[in-house]
């Protein structure tokens, strides 16, 4: 995938001016937060579950090697195979090898952000194997030649007429020449066409939301049932996942289940929770004959023991981006790589380097909504702050910004001077604000005043007010 994170600011500007995108983002803002809030309100134990999930994930991370080895042993015991991939390239090669071994011409895919992370589709296509996305949203994007802009609602940026256009342009070869305009008809058309793809595929690739150490099980969570057809009908099932998805027991995975759908879509639970352990058993009339799990690291193990370890608790629910005012204004593509929103602002610098993603940890108002809804209580603003610190250490922050910060730091270390300067500043701003108390334009603050007025301070600084109110002060 082409990385556009370095041009985040230009991406964001373009997104703000993109009318169809803005209409689509309106649907997001109107939908997810309210649904989550309603689901949470129905479960009095929700906050306690979040604490328990945070503690469980912390326990897992502290013993990650042990649980991964246990998981591997149990997968093998039930006739499955586990493949460890250090990085994206290794993962792609392993998966290609498995597909070639199976003599695969076409591969159906359930929704998987990990396969986005490793750029699997292009790689398979380059090697003569056709990947077919089957999640409706992913399918729409594949036809449009796009990547997901959201981790669970990949096509959230696409409007109805754009779906109509995409289907109309691509479905003619299946004899569907009429341009459909109703969501119902469009979905039926995709259902019909993808049915044949499911039945013809040689390999089915899914992700895994959880890997259960105790039983050697991978779990997928879907609403459409495409993941199930993907993994049940072809001869080979490959589950592509990452090392931090392992959990000890069925009961532990159940705890996380109670949080996942409520946090994501506000559903009480997903429609299909599918727990897969190995290939088909003797006497089974259906199911895959081969079962492979690809465990991807790709830099995750480097986060252990670092200030970013907490990020490995993430269960990819999307609540943080659904509640983020920045994501809600610009959508996911502006972030420029696979993972958008607050979780992406922490993960992307890790994966593609802070020098390529320095804008992302700054693309936050630090309002804290992400942390307040995260089911595993990841302190996202704090982690973004850590990236800002690293960015500063690496001298990646812009010259003007560093200079301004330097001047401010010099002043603030001289309290008497600082107070005098702020007093003068406050007075000047008050005068500029005039009768309305609002400043329409100001040198050096054009980035703010181009879009909104700056409320003028009332002429007295915090220190002056504080001195007055203190016991023994002026009041």
């Amino acid at each position, binding site marked *: 995938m082409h990385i556009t994170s370095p041009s985040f600011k230009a991406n964001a500007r373009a997104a703000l001016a993109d009318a169809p995108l803005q209409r689509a983002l309106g649907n997001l803002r109107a939908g997810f937060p309210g649904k989550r809030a309603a689901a949470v309100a129905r479960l009095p134990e929700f906050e306690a579950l979040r604490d328990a999930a945070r503690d469980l994930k912390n326990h897992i991370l502290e013993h990650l090697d042990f649980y991964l080895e246990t998981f591997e042993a149990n997968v093998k015991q039930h006739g499955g195979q586990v493949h460890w991939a250090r990085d994206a390239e290794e993962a792609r090669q392993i998966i290609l090898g498995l597909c070639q071994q199976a003599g695969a011409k076409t591969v159906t895919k359930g929704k998987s952000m990990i396969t986005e992370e490793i750029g699997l589709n292009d790689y398979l296509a380059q090697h003569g194997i056709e990947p077919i996305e089957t999640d409706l949203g992913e399918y729409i994007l594949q036809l449009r030649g796009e990547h997901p802009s959201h981790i669970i609602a990949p096509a959230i940026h696409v409007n109805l007429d754009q779906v109509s256009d995409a289907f109309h342009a691509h479905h003619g070869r299946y004899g569907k020449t009429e341009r459909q305009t109703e969501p119902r008809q469009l979905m039926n058309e995709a259902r019909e066409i993808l049915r044949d793809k499911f039945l013809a595929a040689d390999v089915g690739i899914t992700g895994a939301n959880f890997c259960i150490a105790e039983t050697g099980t991978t779990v997928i969570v879907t609403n459409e049932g495409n993941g199930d057809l993907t993994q049940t009908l072809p001869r080979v099932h490959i589950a592509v996942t990452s090392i931090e998805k392992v959990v000890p027991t069925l009961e532990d995975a159940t705890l996380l289940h109670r949080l996942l759908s409520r946090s994501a879509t506000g559903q009480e639970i997903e429609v299909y929770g599918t727990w897969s352990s190995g290939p088909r058993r003797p006497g089974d009339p259906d*199911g895959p004959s081969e079962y492979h799990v690809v465990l991807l690291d790709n830099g995750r193990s480097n986060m252990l023991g670092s200030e970013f370890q907490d990020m490995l608790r993430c269960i990819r629910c999307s609540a943080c981006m659904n509640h983020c005012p920045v994501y809600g204004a610009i959508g996911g593509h502006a972030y420029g790589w696979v993972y958008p929103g607050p979780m992406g602002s922490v993960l992307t610098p890790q994966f593609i380097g802070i020098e390529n993603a320095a804008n992302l940890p700054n693309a936050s108002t630090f309002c804290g909504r992400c942390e307040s809804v995260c089911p595993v209580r990841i302190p996202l603003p704090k982690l973004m702050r850590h990236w800002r610190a690293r960015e500063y250490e690496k001298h990646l922050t812009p010259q003007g910004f560093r200079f301004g910060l330097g001047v401010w730091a010099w002043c603030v270390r001289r309290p008497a001077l600082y107070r005098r300067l702020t007093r003068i500043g406050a007075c000047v701003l008050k005068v500029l604000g005039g009768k309305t108390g609002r400043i329409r334009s100001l040198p050096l603050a054009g980035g703010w005043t181009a879009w909104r007025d700056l409320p003028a301070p009332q002429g007295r600084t915090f220190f002056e007010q504080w001195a007055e109110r203190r016991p023994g002060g002026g009041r």
Partner: protein
Amino acid sequence: MSGRDAILGNIRRGLGRGGPLDGAARAACEERLRAHRPVLIPARAQRPHDEQVALFVAMATEAAASVARVAGADDVPAAVAAFLDQGGYPRRAVIAPAQAVSGLDWAAAGIEVEARAARNGDRASVTPAFAGIAETGTLMLLSGPDSPTTLNFLPDAHVVVLDAARIVGPYEDAWAWLRRERGLPLPRTVNWISGPSRSADIEQKLQMGAHGPIQLHIVLVGD
């Protein structure tokens, strides 16, 4: 070095450990796996059995499944016939070989049945359920020679026969039954199913029947 050793080595380095987990810490993790204790069960899922049955019906209905209640197993074929007629399906179904379903008198209800895995084009299927979970109106189905997984996903309509005595409050109770009655390893596939297939990927408008069944019908036997 293999990818496996490199990854495990890097994890251990990050955790500040030279080698594999050992001693008391390892024993504690092994004990945790053996005990597989439930972590936190919501009060909603801890009620007397009759309330759990009522909760199951309410939650399954909310998840857009339809529920028909019958007094005994002998009444199931007639209930399925009524469902097929109402949905405009032919009186034909592909059914699970499990005795609980295949042992019923389908001919008497005028339904033509075949016990096998599903194929493309099958309109309706009938399968048994291992358990019903009241907490969210969720069905738990197990794959096996008696219950092919494709029956749960390929047909347009999926009918599940569930004995009311098999309804539990929380998911954890269903796992406990599975451990006790079947033991590990788990079946190839355990399916949790809550309502029919759906997608909101087109303009965030929810539509039923994305890839899996368009209708999920539960025939609840007894009380």
